[in-house]
């Protein structure tokens, strides 16, 4: 388990060094995107419309933050991750189209996303579910918010972050997926548990 501090824009080379179980901290720019922002971004891409900012080398965070407005300034109050599997249907296209290098969320993602990460050079960073204040405190500045018509949780928030983490590399760019590995081990452990409890399978 190695620890890396990465600055955006992150290069493919830096990403290829990472392996599952490594821990990363990110400094720089990240955006939030849930289901609806993913869908809209991909629609823009199909129509050849530019996004509000170039995402190459940045991180995309599955998060619907709790924010408050002080004067003209937005402040992140709580910003824990949401369940990533809902974005599985978009993420491979998203990585391919925009070249984001880090996808952040909780619960992990599936085979299609894992394959896209291997092909285009990206990783999945698991952020601790529920650790909303830890995340919010690493957000030093909300640069802007786009697509607010989708509602605050679904909008695209653009954050400036400092040492955002810890993020456990749970999918690396070499086809490894920690969540799927753990699931496999759990299946193997089931038999031992049944034995201990005196149950038959």
């Amino acid at each position: 388990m190695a620890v890396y501090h990465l600055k955006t824009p992150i290069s493919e080379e830096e990403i290829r060094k990472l392996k599952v179980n490594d821990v990363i901290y990110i400094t720089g720019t990240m955006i939030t995107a849930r289901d609806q922002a993913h869908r809209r971004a991909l629609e823009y891409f199909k129509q050849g419309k530019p996004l509000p900012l170039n995402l190459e080398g940045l991180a995309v965070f599955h998060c619907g933050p709790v924010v408050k407005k002080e004067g003209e300034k937005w402040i992140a109050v709580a910003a824990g991750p949401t369940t990533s599997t809902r974005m599985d249907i978009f993420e491979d296209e998203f990585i391919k189209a925009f070249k984001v290098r880090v996808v952040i969320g909780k619960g992990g993602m599936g085979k299609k996303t894992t394959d896209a990460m291997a092909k285009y050079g990206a990783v999945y960073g698991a952020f601790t579910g529920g650790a909303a204040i830890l995340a919010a405190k690493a957000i030093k500045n909300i640069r802007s918010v786009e697509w607010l018509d989708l509602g605050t949780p679904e909008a695209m928030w653009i954050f400036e972050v400092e040492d955002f983490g810890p993020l456990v590399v749970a999918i690396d760019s070499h086809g490894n997926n920690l969540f799927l590995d753990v699931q496999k081990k759990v299946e193997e452990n089931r038999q031992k548990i049944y034995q201990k409890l005196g149950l038959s399978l």
Partner: protein
Amino acid sequence: MEIEKIVENVAFNLLKQAVIYLPEDVKQALKKAYEEETSETGKTQLKAILDNIELAEKYQAPICQDTGTIIFYIKAGSEVKGLEKIENALINATKRATKEVPLRPNAVNPFTQKNSGDNTGRFIPFLNWEIVPGNSLELTVMPKGGGSENVCVTGMLVPGEGINGLKKFVVETVIKAGAKPCPPNILGIAMGGGTDIAIKLAKKALLRPLTEPNPDPEIAKLEKEILEAVNMTGIGPMGLGGKTTVLGVNIEYAYRHPASFPAAVAFNCWAARRASARINADGTVEYLTHKKGV
């Protein structure tokens, strides 16, 4: 002061305490888990949780952005006057806490999908009443997170399999839940009654402190046995692997119909929030879970 006002104030304080400060037993269990976890990755998650708990206390902010569905448990002394006003007081406290703490608005009409914006709506906050002898009122609030709620289950077991059937049911439920309920979790387990009774008892069991096993030694033994078994799954903190999947198991039961064996498993996430207070007949208040008040 009138009972309605007192209850509203106390309920507001309880909501605020609950979402900002975890009960001491949960905090201690997380610290112990951090010390004992052998998976390095699992340890990073427990460390992040402990850091987050500390930051929430420091900045007086909710521990998790999901401040849950608001559920109250009320033990009302039969001699308390004005019990008919309590429901209203609890609704008002919920609205106020939503604005002032603040809580995330989490009450959605299932037909229109509209969010009421203040955590109240038909049957929400939900009130569980119990009438007991005496003249005091004990209030407990459980802000119940959605991620861990999504994996709660009831099932009908085969009566002939007895307790073995229950053990299998719990193990399979935990395996199926995996990373979803933000492990480490607390499990409330109940058997008997009927489906409604089992899940109600299971959820209520989540209120029992982790330091208090079931007073019946046979059940306490079963709690321990199931705890050890589910921690052998290797799911670990946040499903990233490790030996801390569950912090504690609390079991309750009701008698069952000879032909049915209902069982239920309720999950709480590591952000296992609860707060209680007793309001005495003279209007004085004792905070039971958060002794220092707000």
